[in-house]
């Protein structure tokens, strides 16, 4: 071929055409690539950027150690210990229906069942526990023995998907001491997870249930750590993008005196059990089914001890409570050991309420502190006769003596007269109810424990509301009752006039009976106010919060809730009356304190025996000591425990003996009061 060979024109034109075709094809392909790039980078760029983050970032969460709960002297009531747990990989072992994923999984589950001594269904139930996140290994058994661990480690290939993990669990160096105060931990529930208040919780997290664990959840919990790791495509960690260390929960220092707490629990339990062998006048033994005991710091309202009987063992809740134990502690037949009676039990206060009604009568101007009022064996008002506990009439007495003798008729008379006065008012002042509320009754005091009840101070409005709610029932039952029967008469009266606050209601209220209900905590707070020169304090268990290194983070200052609003003379009359009750011959609690060194530690107190037909009366005793410079307030109540002087006062005495270091000479065990007074 020679240079310059002339290509035929036709050929050249086709060539140009064909080259143009090739160029067009190339342009088309390049345009397709460009369009795709535009879509990926400009239109969907943000989505891919987010995807890029998700492929290269891994978040690792670390749990914060929960704060400890300490006694006032720094001793540990609750702390943490590492526990070895057997954990199972749910995604590997079971399918969406919760059944073993394949044959190998089924065999692993079978081996686990043998290893743990459970049946296979139980193992599957634990693996499928929906309270745990599917993305975290599910604890199947906590605190497994060495032998189990050894078996697992030596036969890893037989247990694919099963591993071990160290998880912090609560430890109770003092055993079941102060169980109701402490509370326990439980898995967060699905409902709670949906609640904004638990926004930063995840499935499988533990949350405080009951007691201080619940009340101080946000302080004790701490803040979990979060590490965002940058990984490469093999999952190897290349870098740490952010690292937030876990912040341990705060330690809660309480007002609790652990020795006193132990003594209080023992005294309550022993006293209740011992009282069950007391024979009543009707030939039955005292049931004494349950009870409460509270010790408050007289000045601050700090809770030094708080006991509820029967009790439970918080250690049963570590790593998850069994169904059987849960049912037992909630069983009414077992008197619901989980119930924290000092704050959740609501009982008629009986005579321990007389301090409030006495103060109210003085405030209403019906009597002065030294005015004498009669104390007959019975009192008749509006054709109804109300009896004093003492069938023998006593001489007219002042307020202090009325408390000492716990004379019912003294209060009946004054209360009925007050009711008559108020009935004439367009808008009754309801002085008795108002004073009762100032003593802390009829409302939650706001103690830092969950489950506190408000009790009831019945008033005209309360009566009417109650009646409106139940009227229909009264009327129907009245219709159904036999004509002319007492029941029919009573029910048709309730049906028609049940909404009225009548003289009888006022009479009953004056001695803490009728519809009046109070928690042991309210009674303790009322007596604390009397001991504290008339200033009611909010009862509080927590004292301060400290960081893990011991630095003070927040101190929970004693908080006054209000003043009783009594004159000095009236307050003095109450205190004298309470002192005489314990220390002067004829006082209702004198017998229970026989032999107590009252010269060294003068005690002021009040017995109470609250009727609640058809049950055996509830026994009460409320006291503070030393009477001249109060340090502690002690309240004991025993459900169906008979007389306050008989069952409750001796328990309170034991508590005071322990607190003031009084040796019990020659007396072992529980000695009930000599007779039923009050």
């Amino acid at each position, binding site marked *: 071929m020679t240079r310059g060979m002339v290509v035929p024109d036709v050929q050249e034109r086709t060539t140009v055409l064909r080259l143009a075709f090739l*160029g067009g094809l190339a342009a088309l392909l390049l345009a397709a690539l460009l369009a795709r790039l535009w879509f990926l980078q400009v239109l969907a760029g943000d989505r891919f950027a987010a995807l890029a983050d998700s492929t290269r970032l891994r978040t690792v969460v670390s749990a914060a150690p929960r704060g400890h709960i300490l006694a006032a002297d720094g001793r540990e009531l609750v702390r943490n210990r590492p526990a070895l747990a057997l954990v199972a990989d749910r995604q590997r072992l079971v399918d969406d229906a919760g059944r073993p994923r394949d044959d190998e999984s089924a065999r692993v589950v079978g081996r686990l069942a043998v290893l743990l001594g459970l049946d296979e269904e139980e193992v599957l139930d634990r693996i499928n526990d929906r309270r745990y996140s599917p993305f975290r290994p599910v604890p199947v058994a906590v605190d497994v023995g060495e032998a189990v661990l050894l078996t697992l480690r030596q036969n890893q290939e037989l247990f694919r998907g099963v591993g071990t993990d160290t998880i912090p669990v609560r430890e109770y160096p003092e055993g079941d001491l102060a169980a109701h105060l402490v509370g326990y931990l439980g898995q967060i529930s699905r409902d709670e997870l949906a609640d904004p208040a638990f926004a930063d919780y995840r499935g499988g997290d533990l949350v405080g249930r009951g007691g201080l664990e619940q009340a101080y959840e946000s302080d004790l919990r701490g803040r979990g750590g979060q590490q965002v790791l940058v990984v490469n495509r093999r999952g190897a960690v290349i870098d740490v993008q952010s690292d937030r260390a876990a912040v341990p929960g705060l330690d809660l220092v309480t007002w609790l005196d652990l020795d006193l707490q132990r003594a209080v629990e023992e005294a309550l339990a022993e006293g209740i059990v011992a009282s069950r062998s007391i024979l009543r006048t009707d030939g039955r033994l005292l049931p004494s089914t349950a009870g409460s005991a509270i010790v408050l710091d007289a000045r601050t309202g700090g809770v030094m001890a708080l006991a509820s009987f029967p009790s439970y063992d918080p250690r049963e809740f570590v790593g998850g409570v069994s169904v059987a134990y849960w049912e037992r502690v909630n069983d009414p037949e077992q008197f619901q050991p989980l119930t924290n009676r000092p704050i959740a039990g609501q009982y008629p206060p009986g005579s321990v309420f007389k301090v409030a009604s006495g103060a109210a009568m003085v405030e209403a101007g019906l009597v002065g502190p030294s005015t004498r009022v009669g104390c007959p064996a019975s009192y008749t008002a509006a054709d109804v006769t109300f009896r004093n506990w003492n069938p023998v009439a006593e001489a007219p007495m002042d307020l202090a003596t009325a408390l000492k003798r716990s004379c019912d008729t003294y209060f009946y008379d004054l209360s009925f007269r007050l009711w008559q006065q108020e009935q004439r008012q367009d808008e009754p002042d309801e002085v008795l109810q108002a004073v009762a509320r100032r003593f802390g009754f009829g409302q939650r005091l706001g103690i830092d424990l969950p489950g506190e009840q408000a009790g009831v101070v019945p008033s005209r409005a309360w009566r009417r509301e109650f009646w409106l709610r139940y009227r229909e029932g009264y009327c129907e039952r009245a219709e159904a009752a036999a004509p002319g029967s007492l029941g029919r008469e009573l029910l048709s009266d309730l049906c028609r006039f049940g909404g009225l606050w009548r003289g009888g209601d006022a009479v009953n209220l004056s001695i803490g009976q009728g519809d009046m209900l109070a928690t042991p905590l309210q009674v303790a707070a009322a007596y604390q106010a009397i001991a504290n020169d008339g200033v009611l304090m909010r009862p509080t268990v927590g004292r301060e919060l400290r960081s893990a290194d011991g630095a003070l983070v927040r101190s929970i200052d004693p908080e006054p809730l209000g003043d009783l609003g009594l004159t000095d003379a009236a307050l003095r009359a109450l205190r004298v009356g309470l002192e005489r009750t314990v220390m002067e011959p004829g006082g209702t609690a004198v017998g229970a304190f026989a032999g107590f060194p009252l010269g060294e530690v003068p005690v002021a107190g009040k017995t109470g025996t609250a009727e609640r037909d058809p049950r055996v009366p509830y026994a009460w005793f409320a006291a503070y000591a030393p009477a001249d410079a109060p340090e502690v307030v002690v309240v004991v109540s025993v459900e169906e425990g008979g007389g306050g002087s008989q069952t409750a006062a001796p328990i309170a005495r034991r508590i005071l003996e322990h607190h003031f270091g009084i040796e019990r000479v020659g007396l072992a065990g529980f000695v009930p009061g000599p007779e039923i007074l009050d």
Partner: protein
Amino acid sequence: MSALTRDPSVSPVRRALALLGPLRDADLVVVAAALGLTGVGVVAIHSAKAASLAAQGLPATFYTGRQLLAAGIGLVVMVAAALIDYRRLRPLIPFAYLGSLLLLVLVLTPLGTSVRGSQRWITLLGQQIQPSELMKVALLLGLAMLFHETEGIPGLGRTLLAVGLTLIPMALVFAQPDLGTSVTYLFLTGVVLLVSGTRVRWLLLLAVAGIGAFLAALRTDLIRDYQLERLTGFLGADAPDADLTGALFQTRQSMIAIGSGGTYGRGLLEGTQTALAFVPDNHTDFVFTVIGEELGFVGAASVLGLFAVLLWRALRIASQALDRDAMIVASGIGGLLIVQVFVNVGMNVGLMPVTGLPLPFLSYGGTSLISWLGMTGLLLNVHLRSRQGLIGGRW
């Protein structure tokens, strides 16, 4: 050649410089585009490997140094390919073709080097080379020679001969296995047949035969399962429930890397997906992901723009070629360029299945870079001896 270069009284240096004289008329746009792409490639390879090289304690220039060396050799080859009159090269073409074919056979013998199941390399004089890249050039030249001697419309015999010349190396490459490169050969032959004036109905007939053969291959064991999976699977790579452990992983990761670059990119050496090596082979077949992530849409589109410029020049040079074989070579280079860019970038952005095929000029790999710079030299050569070059008139 001018008289200067033959005059013995002129100093050897001046004679050598005079040899380079024709380069004054070289198509500088082609040179700039080729060198620009090569430069971008070196930068992208550096970025792709900087982090992992540092992690392994190797010098950061481990890959870029070798690529630059290849670029240097490639430049020499380019200059040589531009200067030596292509008409003088014609007699050498059969040897180039047969030599490349021999190397391809050797690759399949135990002399070849296998990486991840593909036997594509052979060590020659201490250097690892990829004969299938050389074969590309040899095949193009062979076909050009074949059709150069025809006048008018190529006859059936020549056309079938061309198909035969293609199928032999194609089968050898397919056996490596390297689906991408063997498809490239096919496309190259299609382009050569197109521009050499083969009757349109024959072209269509060949296309139908090709598709039929492909479908037939599907029914046999010739196309392996994983290849089929790659051919079809990439379409679902951006589905949220895509199985990312299999063939889709690479496509998905590469789309994430490119997409996360956004409009302007994360900046050079700032690409997280690149640095963390989420995209496998991101210095070779997936080097485009580095550009996409770090330089964004703007950078990626610019690279495509450089390819478009090169392609336009190739077709322009082809249309101005004085000889038929020169025209075929120039348009064949253009065809190779477009098929490789489309297949490679296409698999990077999830438009095409994942097949091993480097991105011209950019992907790490000496043989590929040298052969592309060599082909650039051929383009310049044709240009220098085209009507355009003649009008320039200095030679």
